[in-house]
């Protein structure tokens, strides 16, 4: 309990000082707002559904992109980690592509898909691919050679080796890559919406800014912080629930 009190001390002090300052001295209305006005604005937007709709749009782009990026990263990373010969051929090309920022592909993505969730997901997927791919390659390369030898000695089929040996041995580390990618996914989805795509939370913030409604803009910013925090907690919970003890354990 006291832990929560200590953690909340600074936010409460800042908000109180901010509110008092605004009430007594006044503030530039076009950039800042009263905390009370922000709460009212956020509450309204929450209840009339605009924030929730925007959140749904942002998350569909972010999650779809994250899913695609993680899948490609893991599926590509395992063979590249297992076979140095494959990495020698594919690796340099990947290294050449990696420095291109995902957002630099925005105009191209727009040409391919037009506005909408697919274009957003494409950018997110490319941004999420790299951390997952790199972490997977390194994790697979560092599996104890003995474990892979046991797979060979028992003449286990490739699929069994990957499901029962490679993935459980690397799951914890790959999950770190997935959590990094999850942070990137939300950031990229909102970036795409602010820059180009008329959808989701990013676009809602652009509208609030252009409509000179700082209270709503601040409320939306706070909301993005809250869902980002919740998303990370959700992934941490999933990691604790499924890794590393139970992946590959025989329950079937």
């Amino acid at each position, binding site marked *: 309990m006291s832990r929560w009190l200590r953690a909340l001390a600074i936010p409460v002090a800042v908000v109180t000082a901010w509110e008092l300052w605004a009430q007594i001295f006044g503030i530039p209305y076009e950039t800042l707002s009263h905390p009370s006005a922000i709460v009212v604005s956020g509450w309204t937007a929450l209840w009339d559904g605009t924030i929730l709709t925007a959140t749904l749009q942002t998350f569909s782009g972010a999650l779809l992109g994250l899913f695609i990026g993680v899948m490609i990263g893991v599926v590509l990373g395992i063979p590249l980690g297992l076979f140095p010969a494959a990495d020698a051929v594919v690796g340099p090309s990947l290294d050449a592509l990696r420095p291109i920022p995902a957002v630099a592909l925005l105009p191209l993505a727009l040409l391919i898909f037009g506005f909408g969730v697919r274009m957003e997901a494409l950018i997110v997927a490319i941004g999420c691919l790299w951390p997952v791919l790199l972490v997977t390659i390194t994790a697979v390369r560092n599996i*104890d050679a*003995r*474990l892979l*030898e*046991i797979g*060979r*000695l*028992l*003449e*286990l*089929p490739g699929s*069994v080796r990957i499901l*029962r*040996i490679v993935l*459980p*041995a690397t799951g914890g580390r790959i999950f770190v890559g997935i959590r990094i990618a999850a942070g990137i996914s939300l950031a990229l989805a909102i970036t795409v919406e602010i820059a180009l795509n008329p959808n989701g939370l990013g676009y809602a913030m652009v509208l609030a800014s252009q409509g000179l409604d700082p209270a709503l803009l601040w409320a939306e910013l706070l909301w993005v912080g809250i869902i980002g925090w919740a998303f990370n907690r959700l992934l941490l919970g999933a990691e604790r629930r499924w890794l*590393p*003890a*139970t*992946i*590959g*354990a*025989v329950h*079937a």
Partner: protein
Amino acid sequence: MQTSYALSGGGPIHEQIPLSTASATLASLQQPILRTRGVRVAIGHGQDRLVILDSMDIDVKPGEFLCIVGPSGCGKTTLLRLFAGLLLPTEGTVLFDGRPITGPARERAMVFQDYARALLPWRTVWANVALPYEREHVPHRERRDRAYALLERMGLKDFGDYYPGQLSGGMQQRVQIARCLAQEPRILLMDEPFGALDALTRQALQDEITRLAAERETTVVFITHDLEEAIYLGDRVIALGTKPGRIVATVDVRLVRPRHQLSTREDSQFLAHRHHLFGLLVGH
């Protein structure tokens, strides 16, 4: 120069027979299950070329318990990896059951010294033992029953639901042996399996493995750097020398079975073998 020493009852009588003659006699009696001819393993090129094993001619008879001793760096682990199919020779042939070994196979099981690395830490003990069944379409229930039957044989039936990390070293090594038995091998390749265990556990497992091998009529190739262990366990002991790894001597051990930790080790033949091999290994 390769020599073969045979000891018969009644005292340390060294009969020196050229190996070629001895193996010719053996071959006429029984087809070897494992045979190497002119095997040479080398790594590197040119100046850096290093010969690890040279002119290895070994025949292993079916059902035989063959021990290979040698100082560290003599290539005994390399030799075992050749038998397992994890490594292919630079020159020469390695035949299993008359066919060249081209890679690992389930009929040849390998027991590693470092049991902790050889078990999957995220699988329970019984699921580790059941790992070889993953390629068969065996129902879950049956896998579990079969794994537990082997665990019971190894005296571990109460530990099936633990994780390997929760077990002592000796128990983990028993789990690894149980998993090797689950693959129903025709030959057990053991790489200093008891080297990391305390003396009492080691002796218990020595007697255990002797019984298991006899019971299942499994051929065993057992690598150790412990002379006494080699003589105590083996029907035959091959001593390797270093630089490059090569056969220094072959000794037939005709100590009666079942052997006993105290009386066998005090037997005059046992001591004679020990003196003889000790002289060979240390004298080099």
